[in-house]
């Protein structure tokens, strides 16, 4: 085999591997993306009905309820504008607390309750996940606009 042929072989082999890998990677990426939505956005129907997404905001004070007998827990996530009920079965993270930031990953149930597969809380008392901070700010703005509109009426 001549050197030229050999190099050609290497290049073809390399490109073939790359093509296969790229297809695989992009397919897998597409299937595993999950978007973040605030309670307001979910209320507005922006969140997908049939796909996993993440819901973030604050755990509303006094909203956490544990079922007796099993590990089901219900709580409400708020951005101080709209609220979404969340149901979760399992052990909550250490830093999960009422009045604190939370991100839940799961799907929206038919009754509008968000069924979480995973609940994440922050890992430091000073730290707020950027998504949650963003959602809270948007919620605040929406609420301000709401009150302004009411005043005008």
């Amino acid at each position, binding site marked *: *085999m001549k*050197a030229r042929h*050999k190099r050609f*072989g*290497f290049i073809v082999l*390399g490109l073939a*591997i*790359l093509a296969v*890998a790229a297809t*695989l*990677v992009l397919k*897998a*990426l597409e*299937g*595993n*993306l*999950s*978007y*973040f939505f605030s309670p307001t956005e979910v209320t507005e129907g922006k969140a997908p009905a049939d796909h*996993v997404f*993440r819901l973030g905001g604050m755990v509303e004070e006094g909203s956490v309820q*544990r079922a*007796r*007998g*099993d*590990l089901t827990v219900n709580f409400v996530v708020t951005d101080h504008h709209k609220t979404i009920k969340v149901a979760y079965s*399992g*052990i*909550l993270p*250490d*830093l999960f607390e009422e009045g604190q930031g939370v*991100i839940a*990953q799961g799907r929206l149930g038919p009754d509008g309750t968000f069924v979480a597969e995973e609940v994440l809380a922050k*890992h*430091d*008392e*000073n*730290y707020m*996940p*950027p*998504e949650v901070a*963003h959602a809270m700010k948007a919620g605040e703005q929406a609420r301000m606009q709401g009150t302004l509109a009411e005043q005008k009426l």
Partner: protein
Amino acid sequence: MIPELGQITLALALALALVQGILPLWGAQRGVSSWIALARPLARLQTVALALAFALLTYSFLIHDFSVAYVAHNSNTRLPTQYLVSAVWGAHEGSLLLWALILSAWGSAVAYFSRSVPDVVVARVLGVLGLVGVGFLLFMILTSNPFDRLVPSPMEGRDLNPLLQDPGLVIHPPMLYMGYVGFAIPFAFAVAAMIGGQLDAAWARWSRPWTHAAWIFLTLGIALGSWWAYYELGWGGWWFWDPVENASFLPWLVGTALMHSLAVTEKRGAFKAWTVLLAIFAFSLSLLGTFLVRSGVLTSVHAFASDPGRGVFILMFLFAVVGSSLLLYAIRANEIKSSVRFEMLSRETFLLLNNAILLVATVAVLLGTLYPLIADALQLGKISVGRPYFDTVFMILTLPLVALVGIGSISRWKRDSGERLWKRLRLPALVALVLATAHSLLLVPFFNPLTLLGMALGLWVVASTLTALRDRMRPHNNLRHIPRGFWGMALGHLGLAVFVIGVTMVETYSVEKDIRLAPGETYAMGEYSFEFKGVDTVTGPNYTAFEGAVVARHGEREIAQLTPQKRTYLVQKMPMTEAAIDAGLFRDLYVALGEDLGDGAWSLRVYHKPFIRWIWLGTLIMALGGLIAATDRRYRALARRAAPTAGATGTARG
């Protein structure tokens, strides 16, 4: 007074780094031997200055000087002494200081161990390291000075993040940083070689032991982090594809590729340009890791309170480093010629495949890590990439790599024949297949094709590596004929096999249950049972805790009294789960307390994790392999031989 002294030592270190970054490089270009000779003493002085700064910060922690903001934010009078020391690198500012210290210590090590390398090369290497040091020190002094005062100074400190009050975390960051920063050395050697225009096999040989050393520390650092996450975070997982874990894993992947590619460059003089590029990538990814961790752009376990201003600085620094080195590469690349020929079937080809696979895997992990950032920047929404992406993609991409390990390590340089390889490898392949099948049918709870595949691959690596070792014992059947480099490779691959077997077993046969237990209730899990005795309150030095009592039994036999805790730290009021683990070579029993459900009942996590220790055992074996390879005689032998000619090649480009 002490903090001001610290400020002065930092400024001094910056000045020294600046001089180290300019004079030796300039001297090397101009052939000014007195400037070249400055490199080594400057590197040592910089290390002394930074060690002093580090000692001063440690001292401030030990005497509870809460007038120093960093001390006040990260410690407390009740914090145990060992955590007072580890708190020095427990948060951003101090970890940067540790980083800078380690960078300069690596530099000093180069100055010390490379006495046989031509002075002009050492001057360039240390000069490049000096410039990198300038970047880090500027970053620290301008955005995150650990000695900044807090006015008025508080009476009591805010304490160290409870997650970090753990023996694993005392050594995890230093190990990881040794690895991260260690890749600055092959990077500096590569840049120095490009500046000097001498990209021969010599530079590959000089940078090989350093690459091994950095890789060893990074391997250990990552393994420690994984182990820590397993027992401290209370979820019982060993890898989460968290952005910050990925940040340490990316340089590891490229570093592994670099180790293999350096072997080809040193032994055969091939892949020269490629190896230089890998050296640049490995260090760039280390810097990218810093950016990801410290900028706060990512939601992560590790993203403690952070600051965008710092991110911008590191990003600029990253662009400067990558940009300038790639520019240099673009200028020099056409001068780098690898005129060595090799056949399609040869060790070179297998190492090329190794590199290709590792690089593709790196790109895949990088894509998954950065995609949310890119999407956010492009206003595509706030996206996260799920763990299944990484699991699936990484597994599919790297399985062929594991299969190739066996062939590659037995194949010959330059050219080999398929017939010979088949003859040598059919027995190991058969052994692996038979044993894996027997294991899958007889020894596991249920059949799973992935277990069969994973076990077959793991055993294949073991069997083929043993065959390669036996081949190497010839002609006299003497183990002493095998050089250390080969032992290192064999151990590295055996470690990989142990790791693969561990992952296969853990991922297929782990049982994880979240359950509700009242005192006196027993939960049965396969052959094991867990009796919950109830929860008591206990007091630690700086926390109070609920402590559960769980008796684990295997059949009727009691095997462990497990006492998982749920701690509340007094200062930060932060709850923390301390899992109780009964560890074993073939299985871990893992119990963690969840929440108080009233009436004495608690939610508990009860896990059975087969072979999980093999994951870390495998990485330890890999690191040991790296150590043995790094101490191969020929690096020292070459050093001695090269010594007399050092002057001759010294100022070639003067």
